[in-house]
């Protein structure tokens, strides 16, 4: 049976792009986080939407699970094939199809990486950029959007998933659909004003279909960019500071940092405030308004702007910041996991207190980074725990700390971002029954055979 499916897959994509070899199965069975590995039966790399369609049709006929994967960098195990089946590595579909400069949008295939898009835009229209997450350049743009990722433009414009202007999707039953203006016009400029069908696919972790193309909003990119770090001790004052900074509407990105090492950072929390401008004057204008907005806190000696050493500034202005990836090597052990909690900004002090408690309780080090979403409508608060892959004790501690962080997130009224299967269960458990039922019905409608990334968003009523 497997042999037949293997042959059928070869028919569709060619022998070079199907593997049932244990080396590929090993690599695709796991990600860099702490989820237990689970082996697929096949790894397939399609090049066209027609190939994706044929694979999905085959999977439906044979009732084989399908797991669409980008670069598999969520660290939550979202592309681990929990019920075996086919992992679809989408990264051969890596064409940038259209750049519409006046419309400020780009149309890309599912496998286009952050690095490729960033480099393409820098070369072809340096006055436009997309909202770049702090992930490595190898992460896919579509993957990040589908998990409601955030990027450097999120404080100004919201979650990256709110920047979608159109989708092409292969449904679990094999039909190909277009969502948004592209469904009736040659232009991919907007999902609205049509019914918001995109919502059937954003945040569903591939359980409702496979996105093969995406229209993405681009935003003005200014020539100059600078960063200030505002330092505080009192987390309650951080909430106030963020409110004031976001009111000015002068910052592009607003981030938070809190960690016990290096020693210089211990006991303080920092707000990263990024400003951009086409001229020095514009930059200075924005900087002064931001300084002014925090003048009360400064006068009270409760907060101040840090003098940044050139090396540190360089690291903060790097796009994306490789420093965040390097969190993985803090224990010289190649790993870190984090609970990304989406919380109201006013819950920051609670979240921070929980983080420190959890780290102390589990005798593990921690790091917090965060990002304000919209004008402080909420924020991403990361509870991050490095671990050493060669040290089972450190893995155990990180796992426990992670679990507790997810529980703490729900406790304080937040919502876990990109939750793994266990955390999805926690969410569904807590969720309004009506909402859970709706989710179940949508999944059942779109994926009657239950082949799409099973194990995820499993509604048990």
């Amino acid at each position: 049976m497997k042999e037949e499916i293997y042959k059928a897959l070869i028919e569709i994509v060619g022998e070079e792009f199907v593997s049932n070899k244990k080396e590929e199965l090993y690599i695709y069975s796991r990600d860099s986080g702490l989820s237990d590995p689970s082996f697929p039966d096949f790894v397939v790399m399609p090049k066209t939407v027609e190939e994706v369609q044929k694979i999905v049709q085959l999977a439906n006929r044979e009732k084989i699970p399908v797991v669409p994967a980008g670069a598999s960098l969520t660290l939550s195990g979202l592309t681990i094939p929990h019920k075996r089946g086919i992992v679809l590595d989408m990264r051969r579909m890596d064409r940038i199809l259209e750049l519409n400069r006046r419309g400020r949008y780009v149309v890309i295939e599912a496998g286009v990486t952050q690095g490729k898009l960033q480099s393409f835009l820098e070369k072809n229209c340096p006055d436009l950029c997309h909202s770049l997450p702090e992930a490595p350049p190898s992460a896919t743009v579509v993957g990040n959007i589908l998990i409601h990722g955030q990027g450097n433009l999120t404080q100004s414009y919201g979650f990256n998933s709110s920047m979608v202007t159109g989708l092409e999707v292969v449904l679990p039953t094999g039909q190909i659909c277009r969502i948004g203006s592209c469904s009736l016009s040659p232009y991919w400029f907007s999902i609205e004003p049509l019914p918001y069908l995109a919502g059937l696919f954003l945040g569903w972790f591939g359980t409702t279909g496979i996105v093969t193309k995406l229209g993405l909003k681009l935003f003005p990119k200014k020539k100059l960019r600078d960063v200030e770090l505002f330092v505080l001790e009192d987390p309650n004052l951080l909430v106030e500071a963020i409110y004031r900074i976001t009111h000015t509407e002068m910052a592009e990105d607003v981030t938070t940092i809190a960690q016990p090492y290096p020693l210089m950072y211990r006991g303080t929390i920092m707000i990263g405030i990024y400003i951009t401008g086409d001229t020095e004057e514009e930059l200075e204008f924005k900087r002064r308004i931001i300084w002014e907005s925090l003048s009360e806190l400064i006068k009270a000696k409760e907060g101040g702007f840090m003098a940044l050493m050139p090396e540190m500034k360089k690291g903060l202005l790097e796009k994306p910041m490789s420093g965040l990836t390097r969190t993985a090597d803090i224990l010289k052990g190649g790993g870190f996991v984090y609970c990304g909690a989406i919380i109201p900004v006013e819950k920051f002090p609670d979240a921070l207190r929980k983080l420190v408690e959890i780290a102390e309780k589990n005798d593990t080090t921690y790091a917090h980074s965060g990002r304000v979403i919209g004008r402080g409508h909420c924020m991403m608060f990361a509870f991050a725990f490095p671990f050493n892959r060669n040290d089972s004790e450190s893995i155990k501690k990180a796992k426990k700390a992670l679990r507790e962080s997810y529980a703490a997130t729900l406790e304080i009224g937040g919502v876990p971002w990109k939750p793994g299967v266990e955390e999805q269960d926690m969410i569904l458990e807590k969720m309004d029954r009506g909402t859970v039922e709706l989710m179940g019905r949508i999944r059942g409608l779109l994926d009657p055979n239950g082949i799409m990334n099973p194990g995820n968003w499993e509604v048990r009523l």
Partner: protein
Amino acid sequence: MLQFNKSLCENCYTYDCLTKCQYMEIDVETASEEIKRLINGEDSFVLHNCVTCYACEEYCKKGNHPFYLITDLQEKKGILPAPKPIVKQWINLAIPTKKDIPHFYGAEEPVISLCLFPEYVKTLQGKLFEGLSLVVGRYFFCQLVYLHFGKPSLIRERLPKIIENIANHGFKEVIFFHDECYSTFTSYANAYGIDVPFRPIHFFEYLYNRLKELKGEIRPLNVKIAYQRNCSTRLTPEKEHYLDKIFDLIGVERVERKYDRENALCCGGIIRALQKYDLFVDVQKRNVEDMIKAKAEYCVFNCPACYSSLSERVTKAGIKPIMLHELCKLALSKEG
């Protein structure tokens, strides 16, 4: 205990320490009142508005210690020049921890201490530094920076252990890369009656003597430079003659300009840390415009913190920022 001699102030009629201050407008009459308040340990606007540039230590021609007095009083009265979280960062920066052990790296004299500037280790290479051993780390950090943050007691608290670390290794002489370290073990230690059982050597002295040895290999640079005096240099101006001798040897002209020598302006770094943004911009602008007016091609720094703070504006003005030792290396390099 600060060895402050109030009778020296009683016999002063110019009150240079306060009247010459570049950041507070103080006339002689006001100065005479405020100095009395300071001597009596009372509150004064001086304690709140001082930007901690260290200059008054140099301005005082009576050999008294007005700046050390100010910082002691600031601490006594709980007056923080900078916001609390900024002060905390600086305090944490140099906490000696259990894990920290003094890294001597097999160092033998002649030895140079780079304290908290490990990034400069790789720049101390080549003929100019042949035969020098390097020591780096928190355990040699002089702590003097806390004068900027109203925490001078930390200096006295941590300094004995630092001195012990150095002396215990048997060093009789230590060259200090940063001027502030040198000034701690001379001016500050003297003012507080702290015993220093080794001879501190200033980096300028080392550079000058070594350049003299390599005189035959020096290729005069024939450039005009502006020199940026850092704050702590004002604590030990007596070593500055080495600097002018170095400039002579390497063939550079230290341009005559308004904001040099006793009239030097702060690089602005600490002023910014004290959250005085407008003053920071003003001070940096005036300083750099002054360099442009004097047609300087390079701006030479002796302090890494000044370099961090001012190099961006200097570069934008078309002047090349460079550390003093890098300038000396240029004069010894074979390539053009």
